[in-house]
């Protein structure tokens, strides 16, 4: 028996490539699949977390502002009376959210895979 055959080389490299392919798919999906979902009434909008910016919700008819920084988001301005949404602070990890009930606006982080199907609070 040979030390290594041509067949081995072909087979093993194909095998290795398949495994690497899965790893690359995995890496790619974990980095890019975090996004901010903005809910206004019953409409939903997806906002990228990649670049830092301030989103003014005036165009949606709400007097609110959301800031996005370091892949995290927070409501920084709102005309609602209770200001709970501002107090809810920064949302950054999967499933976290901040909600402004009077204005019917919420932001939450959507990930490709969440640990829980739902959160009771």
């Amino acid at each position, binding site marked *: 028996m040979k*030390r290594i055959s*041509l*067949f081995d080389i072909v*087979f093993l490299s194909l095998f290795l490539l398949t495994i690497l392919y*899965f790893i690359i798919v*995995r890496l790619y999906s974990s980095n890019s699949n975090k996004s901010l979902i903005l809910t206004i009434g019953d409409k939903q909008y997806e906002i990228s977390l990649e670049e830092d910016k301030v989103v003014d919700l005036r165009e949606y008819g709400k007097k609110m502002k959301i800031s996005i920084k370091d892949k995290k988001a927070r409501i920084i301005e709102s005309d609602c009376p209770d200001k709970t949404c501002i107090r809810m602070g920064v949302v950054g990890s999967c499933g976290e959210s901040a909600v402004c009930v009077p204005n019917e606006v919420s932001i939450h982080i959507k990930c490709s895979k969440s640990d829980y199907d739902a959160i009771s609070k």
Partner: protein
Amino acid sequence: MQFQNKNRIVAVLAAISIVLGVMENFLPFPIPFVRLGLSNIGIVIGVYLLDLRYLLFLGGLKSVVTAIFSTGFIFRIVIAYPSLLISIFIMYLFYKFSRKYSTALSISALGSVVNMVLQFLIIKILFIKNLAFLDILPYFLLISFFTGIFIGLISNSVLNKILVGRS
């Protein structure tokens, strides 16, 4: 080869596998749940020397006895026994179809990866149902691919010594 002879081969290979397997329990490996799988040297050599019936017997013997000498007997046996037997079956098939071209390297790498997949499946089905399966599996497959090649290299050189003038 005669019946007697095969029994003897099983005994020798099982002894090698079990000793290496138990020994390996004491060798630290940097990644949890991952080991070199030195005990599989006996199995890979067995693929070349035995037919399927004896091979499965060897695998069953090895996984049961190694489990007895390890912590978490039930856990080990439930995971290791079926996955080893199925991977032995697959290695044997692969050997049958490709023996003219392949060496123990391919067989060992294949067996190692298939074994890892099966162990993950069993853990997911029986123990941790919400295991983030696809998230970590590829990394484990990569590791088992290389440990498989390592085992294949060792088996290969052993086989080259045993099989001199035989094939």
